[in-house]
């Protein structure tokens, strides 16, 4: 059999593509996923990491709210190691209308979201960082989810089921026979090599870039790119998600995640051409700080770690070129019935929370085309790292490791951390002190999770995501990477790219302690290490 032949080709290595690949692989298909960059580089890795309860959408979009709460409960089961069950608060401040709270709670309950009005005093005890002036509070089952980990776990599972992944590979065109897509032309962006792959069905899961992919296939999808800017604070100020109980607006969600917390977001329509180079403006930074401090006043004196922005893949409801009817819902297009193009499906719209449902819809469409009748099992089958063993048992099984390594690794790798049992003392040494990432965890990621550079490694292990933003760990990790792929010249360039990428998120908020840290880092790399 031709090794370049598959049952289905998936374009896009974000959460939708990874989830679709997993679902297809679970239904017995031979899958290939193609991503022009690394996993989770688009909107997947550039959001709050909020495990929505759906409450945010309850008043305006009942359908999204119902999808969210269903998926929320599913992810707690199948992706336990990617999820923190923090709960969430919707707070009413003196300037907000308390009457909204009643509507909000009724709509939440109608959607199946357990929303409970609690006394503001109880809310203050539950979350001491919350604005003490609050006049109302509703508790909902929000949480946080690590999108990088979730994406990597889906892809790893697909690979364990025989799926293949090509990262840093760009689709340059479609192989088309008459009115049928038969495969794709690709180019590896690292080696320049070109390769053709064949499959009876191709799924376009490229997020906002799906518009270009569709154009390449000769069909049109109307996308409406909306930039969202966010700020990461250097401390986990809150342990409970804090939202404003009012109509959704800018900067009204504060999500705790790992060692940090994230405030966001803004929403600005941008031209499609700017999707590849979004930057956070000073006005957005000011707005996020001002509004964020209303949720948790201590944010105004908390160090900001970085600013970043993502682009939401909003889609006009089908065939509405005016864009008036923008949907945040899931859009699954079979281009055969829509455009007369066979063998091509687009899955877009939606959100991180509903990726599994999107994958299910796309996979159902693929199976229909292939004449396969097999039910979706992704809602019941745990992802690698969240299997039936308890995290506690795994942490105990690596009891010889220092306690920091035990905790941090189990937290990030879930039950996969039991692999670290074979570690020796050398593997226990910390590479990243801020996030407590050990040599062993880095080597495990390099071996198993398709890492080809430091930024890839960061997305899979949190190396360089902490307070020092890569000051110490970048160089250490570069040493380990150079050892694994053996090319120092390449690693030298990689190190410079990594530091520049970190700096890109630092300088928009470059004052106070951030500037102190930056001065130190820049001085050390330039004058001591000699980059």
């Amino acid at each position: 059999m031709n090794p370049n032949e598959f049952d289905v080709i998936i374009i896009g290595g974000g959460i939708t593509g990874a989830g679709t690949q997993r679902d297809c692989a679970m239904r017995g298909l031979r899958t290939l996923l193609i991503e022009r960059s690394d996993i989770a580089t688009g909107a997947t890795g550039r959001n709050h990491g909020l495990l929505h309860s759906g409450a945010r959408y309850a008043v305006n979009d009942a359908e999204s709210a119902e999808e969210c709460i269903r998926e929320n409960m599913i992810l707690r089961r199948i992706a336990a190691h990617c999820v923190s069950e923090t709960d969430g608060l919707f707070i009413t401040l003196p300037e907000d209308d308390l009457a909204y709270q009643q509507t909000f709670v009724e709509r939440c309950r109608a959607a199946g979201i357990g929303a409970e009005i609690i006394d503001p005093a109880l809310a203050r005890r539950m979350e001491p960082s919350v604005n003490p002036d609050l006049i109302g509070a509703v508790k909902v089952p929000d949480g946080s989810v690590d999108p990088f980990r979730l994406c990597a776990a889906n892809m790893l599972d697909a690979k364990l089921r025989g799926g293949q992944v090509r990262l840093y590979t760009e689709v340059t065109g479609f192989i088309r026979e008459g009115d049928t897509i038969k495969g794709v032309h690709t180019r590896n962006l690292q080696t320049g090599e070109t390769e053709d792959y064949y499959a009876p069905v191709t799924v376009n899961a490229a997020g906002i870039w799906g518009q270009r992919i569709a154009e390449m296939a000769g069909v049109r999808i109307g996308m409406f790119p909306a930039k969202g800017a966010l700020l990461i604070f250097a401390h986990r100020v809150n342990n409970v998600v804090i939202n404003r109980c009012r109509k959704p607006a800018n900067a009204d969600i504060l999500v705790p995640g790992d060692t940090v917390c994230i405030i966001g977001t803004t929403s600005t329509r941008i031209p499609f051409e700017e999707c590849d180079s979004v930057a956070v403006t000073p006005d957005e930074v000011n707005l996020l700080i001002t509004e964020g401090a209303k949720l948790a006043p201590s944010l105004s004196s908390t160090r900001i770690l970085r600013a970043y922005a993502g682009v939401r893949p909003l889609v006009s409801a089908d065939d509405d070129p005016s864009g008036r009817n923008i949907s945040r819902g899931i859009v699954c297009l079979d281009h055969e019935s829509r455009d007369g193009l066979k063998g091509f499906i687009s899955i877009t719209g939606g959100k991180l929370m509903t990726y599994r449902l999107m994958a299910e819809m796309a996979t159902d469409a693929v199976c229909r085309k292939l004449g396969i009748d097999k039910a979706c099992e992704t809602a019941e089958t745990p992802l690698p790292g969240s299997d039936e063993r308890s995290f506690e048992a795994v942490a105990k099984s690596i009891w010889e490791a220092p306690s920091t390594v035990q905790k941090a690794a189990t937290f990030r790798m879930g039950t996969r951390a039991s692999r670290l049992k074979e570690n020796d003392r050398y593997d226990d040494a910390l590479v990243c002190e801020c996030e407590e990432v050990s040599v062993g965890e880095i080597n495990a990621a390099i071996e198993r999770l398709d890492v080809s550079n430091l930024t890839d490694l960061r997305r899979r292990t949190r190396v360089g995501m902490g307070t020092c933003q890569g000051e110490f760990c970048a160089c250490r990790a570069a040493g380990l990477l150079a050892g694994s792929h053996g090319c120092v010249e390449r690693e030298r360039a990689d190190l410079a790219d990594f530091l520049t990428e970190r700096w890109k998120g630092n300088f928009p908020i470059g004052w106070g302690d951030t500037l102190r840290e930056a001065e130190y880092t820049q001085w050390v790399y330039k004058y001591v290490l000699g980059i």
Partner: protein
Amino acid sequence: MRFDTIIIGGGLAGLTAGISLQKAGQSTAIVSAGQNSLHFFSGTFESMLGMPPRVVDLFAEAGIHLHYTPGVRLMSLGTFGKAFLALEDTDLFPTEKFARKALVVNFAGFNDFFSSFLAQGLEKQGIACRVRLIHLPELDPLRQSPSEMRSVHMARILDGIWEKVVQEVRVLIKDEDAVILPQVFGLQGADIPMKIRQAIPARVVFAATMPPSVPGIRTQMMLHRRYEILGGTYLMGDEVARAHVHDSVVHSVATKNMDQHFLTGDHFILATGRFFAKGLASTPEKVYEPIFGLDVDYSPDRNTWYDADFLKYQPYMRFGVKTDPQLHPMVGGEPLKNLYAVGSILGMTRPDLGSGAGLAINSAFTAVDNIL
């Protein structure tokens, strides 16, 4: 408490001023918050282009011997930088191709030394390299804790077993004419690195590790000791909280630890460093000097503070306090008559005095001469 001169900041600039003033018969106090840029000192004196006897003598009297070898220094990632003056155990070479063949040696499990980068950098210069690891069970206690394999902790152990390291290197060496080792020797003095050099039949080069810098911490300790031997009062772990200034004259400063006991003096030297050391502070709107509220030379438009390219020179590094030719900093354009700003708090406002270690020493001497 009263002194002739109060020095705020205990890094290279503050210590240079303190030692010089004590030697000239003044009574001085240094208020030091703790760490300073000597903790990541490369071992070479940036922007010192000559070998001023005054500098060499000051260091020699503290037990620190310098050598003057105009050329280049080897940096951690296998690149080279220009240098002229260096600590005796920090090598300078006339050209980058300083050897024919080099053996790069690291200690197993030490991730703060980049032997593969060094080897590749040297091979670019035509120096053939072999990289080897030494396994020493004596370092195992450090591995009990995952963050103990750092330069200074290693030096504490390796200084006691340097002869064993020499034996191991002698076993590994073949026909190499150079051996590169990490700078993890000589925490108390340069004698151990110098003994290692003599005991290995090739040119031994100590290359910098990730901070902290072992020769930097040693330099700090030796200058500190020299300052106290000369009778200086070094207030460690304290910070100036506020200053009393009248008619452009500083009368006293209060520290955090001795709130009610003011330090009064005829002269004051401000050697508090730049952003990292908190000599300068910044908000989204402004850059300011936190103790005296001195005039700072900076751009009011924050968008011009940075270059998006991390590797390019960053404009914010130029920012510094404004001074008159005698290094008196100013408030509202009016110089403070008995205050002197020295070291990196000057930013690039005084390019005539150099940068880095050169600026620290040159500006300290300028202030000392004006005081005396």
